[in-house]
């Protein structure tokens, strides 16, 4: 029975994603612009110094970027659900309320994964994917990173009262998480303060895992920096921790009261 409910929640997420064609399109175009414009420009500069292929180096980070936007924004839409009627449908349904969080996390992760598969196809067609690719590791890395982004999106969503501060979330969460993750440059030679931040950013380990899968033959400065096992366990740990806190918060805060306070602070 809960399986049917979960499938419905996932189905709804995908339906909504496919309806928002504009958002899907921009989700594809955003990483391509990075790849062609930044990757092309910086790559040309680096080539003069004889470093490796910068565009190849960017690909893992850009896949993660798609997950960050796709899965995290899908999770954050929980806040909109609180304001609209959907949350009422969910809280009165016959399963525990933490299941709403778990099912929404999975559905957000799937929405992100669908987008990333689309981008992978585009990249393959454009010739930006180079062999050898470790497919199993790629799949694992994508799934873990998608769940990570979805889980942290959920964590933000259960604590925020409204998404009026959407720009704040974009500027103070999504962009820093992306910039400080090793997606754009290797971490090794960063100043200590910057490096410390990247090391506590769980997203870093997702990017690194994908580097293992996609550019393991890359040598020198552009190579992966953590071990595969390290990446997998840190991500799993962060996912579990984030979901645990999110579920706790969601089930502890009396649902209808927090709904009411959201509605009232919106009316003011």
């Amino acid at each position, binding site marked *: *029975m*809960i399986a049917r409910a979960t499938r419905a929640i996932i189905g*709804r997420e995908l*339906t909504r994603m496919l309806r928002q064609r504009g958002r899907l399109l921009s989700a594809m175009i955003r990483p391509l612009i990075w790849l062609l414009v930044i990757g092309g420009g910086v790559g040309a500069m680096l080539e003069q110094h004889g470093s490796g292929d910068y565009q190849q180096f960017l690909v893992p980070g850009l896949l993660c970027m798609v997950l960050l936007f796709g899965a995290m924004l899908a999770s954050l839409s929980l806040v909109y659900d609180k304001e609209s*009627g959907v949350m009422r449908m969910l809280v009165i*349904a*016959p399963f525990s309320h933490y299941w709403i969080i778990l099912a929404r996390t999975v559905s957000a992760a799937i929405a992100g994964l669908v987008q990333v598969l689309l981008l992978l196809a585009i990249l393959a067609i454009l010739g930006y994917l180079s062999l050898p690719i470790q497919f199993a590791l790629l799949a694992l890395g994508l799934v873990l990173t998608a769940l990570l982004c979805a889980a942290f999106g959920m964590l933000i969503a259960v604590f925020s009262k409204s998404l009026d501060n959407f720009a704040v979330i974009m500027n103070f969460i999504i962009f820093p998480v992306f910039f400080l993750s090793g997606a754009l440059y290797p971490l090794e030679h960063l100043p200590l303060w910057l490096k410390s931040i990247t090391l506590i950013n769980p997203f870093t380990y997702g990017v690194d895992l994908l580097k293992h899968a996609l550019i393991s033959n890359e040598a020198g400065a552009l190579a992966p920096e953590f071990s595969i096992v390290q990446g997998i366990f840190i991500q799993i740990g962060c996912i579990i921790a984030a979901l645990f806190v999110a579920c706790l918060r969601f089930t502890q805060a009396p*649902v*209808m*009261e927090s709904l009411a306070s959201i509605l009232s602070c919106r009316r003011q």
Partner: protein
Amino acid sequence: MQASAIECRGLTKQYGDVRAVNELTLNVADGSFFGLLGPNGSGKTTTIHMLSTLARPTVGSIRVAGYDVLKQPVQARACIGLVFQESALDRSLTVAENLHFAGALYGLDATTVEQRLAELLDLFDLESKREVRVAALSGGMRRALDIARGVLHRPRVLFLDEPTIGLDIINRRAIWRFISRLRQEHGMSVLLTTHYLEEAEGCDEVAFLRHGQLIGQGQPSDLIRALGHYILEIETDQPDYYIEQLSSELGTPVQEDERLLFAIQDEDFQFGALQQRLQHEVRALQLRKPDLNDVYIWRNQPTGKGEAA
């Protein structure tokens, strides 16, 4: 003894300084139709949310369909249907998608949902809107769909929080016919809140809430009878004068600006005599049967004369 569909004892909800519900004890018999009435802010919605597991009581115990709501919320929710005061639909999905989504949340398979969906859309005359997004429906259509969603899984206990607000008379009647059919066919119990008291006259029992407190309870017909045999309405420019004049024979009236309402206890009340005496002095004079609206008005007077039954 018949089992109770809803049973709560000493139910209290405190929001900061506001006591939204105060020591409420209710018993709704299985299969019965129960009305919870009261002015805005009297605690009806808060009560429904507590009974349906969505808000935690500050104090009190609740059983719904035999389940302890605080200990077995999931089992209780499986037996509950709830039509919220505000809409509980996904505006970005179509009518059919919404009902399929809601059905799946209760574990219904697609065939069952499809069958009930067709029936419900037919009932509310919404077949042509099947593939239309909820955002593009009129307010009344959305309300109808909300009710369809609430009863889709054939709940044993249905909570209706002002269900017919914004609905036209045709749809309103269609809904009540449908609800009464569900009650007959499935023995469904219903707890209703409404500000349209004619709808509550069909209740087996109504309870009046005020400031979160129960101020009276009973069968509508009994309550109406207890109020008096007739209601005498007088419209006048000098209400105070007539209160003074008539109070000794007719009792204290309810005053609504320039209108006075007297509850007449005497079955053989001589209206003709009064009419002759007053008809040239007052603007309007009318004698009629009391209804639930009158009971409500008497119980919710600012002077607080509503006696507890």
